[in-house]
């Protein structure tokens, strides 16, 4: 049941291809524009900040669409057919996988066109994974809210940017350590623990609150 839901998400995504194609073009465009604007004159904090701004906008774009599809007859079918909690877990799992892959692609192009500043690679990939989990947890719920409020993309950004900020600030802190190339032994684990705790918190909140949005 649960796997079927995730499979359904992937099928829908790759059958339509419009979201996927749109995001890829957006990514290529943004990174190319940044490369032209900065022309390689970029220090490490700027590199880090710009990378996460691009990733944030990508994730808001793709997860913003994730509940807009559930309107009308299809939404009614899903409502009758699946329990709410399965549905939100499937959405989060799907969004998380999608975002993780997209952030890897972002990183690839970013390193190619601008430059690769990351010195502690393994830590950076851990940050990417935790970031996509946390973002998926928050943004899936926000997407459900804005879809219920008949919202468009503007509503999605208004709702999600403020609540995503704590997560993004912690992510940028940890990611800065990876960019600076701090060894695993010398890392301040405070922020990694906080990041994991934030992930657990947002996933739990989405899991608890979603059923109230589902019943209508």
């Amino acid at each position, binding site marked *: 049941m649960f796997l079927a839901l995730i499979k359904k998400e992937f099928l829908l995504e790759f059958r339509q291809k419009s979201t996927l194609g749109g995001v890829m073009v957006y990514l290529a465009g943004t990174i190319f524009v940044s490369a032209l604007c900065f022309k390689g004159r970029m220090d490490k904090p700027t590199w880090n900040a710009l990378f996460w701004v691009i990733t944030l906008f990508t994730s808001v774009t793709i997860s913003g669409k994730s509940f807009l599809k559930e309107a009308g007859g299809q939404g009614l079918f899903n409502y009758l057919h699946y329990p709410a909690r399965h549905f939100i877990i499937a959405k989060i799992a799907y969004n998380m996988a999608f975002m993780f892959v997209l952030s890897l692609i972002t990183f690839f192009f970013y390193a190619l066109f601008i430059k690769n500043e990351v010195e502690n690679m393994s830590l950076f990939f851990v940050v990417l994974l935790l970031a996509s989990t946390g973002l998926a947890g928050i943004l899936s719920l926000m997407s459900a809210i804005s879809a219920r*409020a008949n919202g468009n993309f503007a509503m999605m950004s*208004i709702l999600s940017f403020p*609540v995503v*900020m704590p997560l993004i600030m912690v992510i940028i802190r940890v990611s800065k350590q990876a960019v600076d190339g701090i060894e695993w032994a010398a890392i301040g684990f405070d922020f990694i623990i906080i990041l994991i705790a934030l992930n657990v918190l947002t996933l739990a*909140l989405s899991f608890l609150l979603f059923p109230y*949005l589902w019943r209508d």
Partner: protein
Amino acid sequence: MKNWYKILSVILILYTLVWGMLAPVPRLDILNETIRNVFYHVPIWFSMLFMMTVSLFYSIKTLQTNSLLHDSKALDAAIVGFFFSIPGITTGSIWAKYTWGTWWTFQDPKLNGVAISILIYTAYFILRSSVDDEQKRAKISAVYNVFAFVMMNVFIMILPRLTDSLHPGNGGNPAFAKYDMDNGMRMVFYPAVIGWILFSYWIFNVKNRISILKNKLND
């Protein structure tokens, strides 16, 4: 006597307004006499947080019962809390000008935190105004309110304790040790906190009675 808390809040606030100006305070570098702002700035933020907690409480009630009455209470508490953040920011900004030398700084996580919290609650009001159906609005905004409250607390309670901050009680310091409050100051500070919290609850009650009357008129 069901109005005892209103009388108590007026007495306590009057006492702290007057005695807060007159009481002897410790002479500290940089802070000097501005330390008296602790009696006004901090209790106002506490009552803002209190109002947001009340709003959270009624949002959870709304989710449990689906009652529009609880929903209007959650909204009113959020509005009152939101308005308390304005004097909170103003007194803080004036204080910052005389002690840190600037009206606003992005170096301090607590300042960023309150700025984002204000954005979060603005988003909450925008969300409410964009849905027409009352039942639906109650449910959606309650869900957002619960989520928003948790995120706000992460921002203003947890993150500042981990990073360097200009505020006392942050950057790993326990909350009040750095205030260097002596017993004389505590005699003003705690009554001020209680007084302002009761006062905010009073405003919330009046506000809620007005919105109930408005709803009756509309029906």
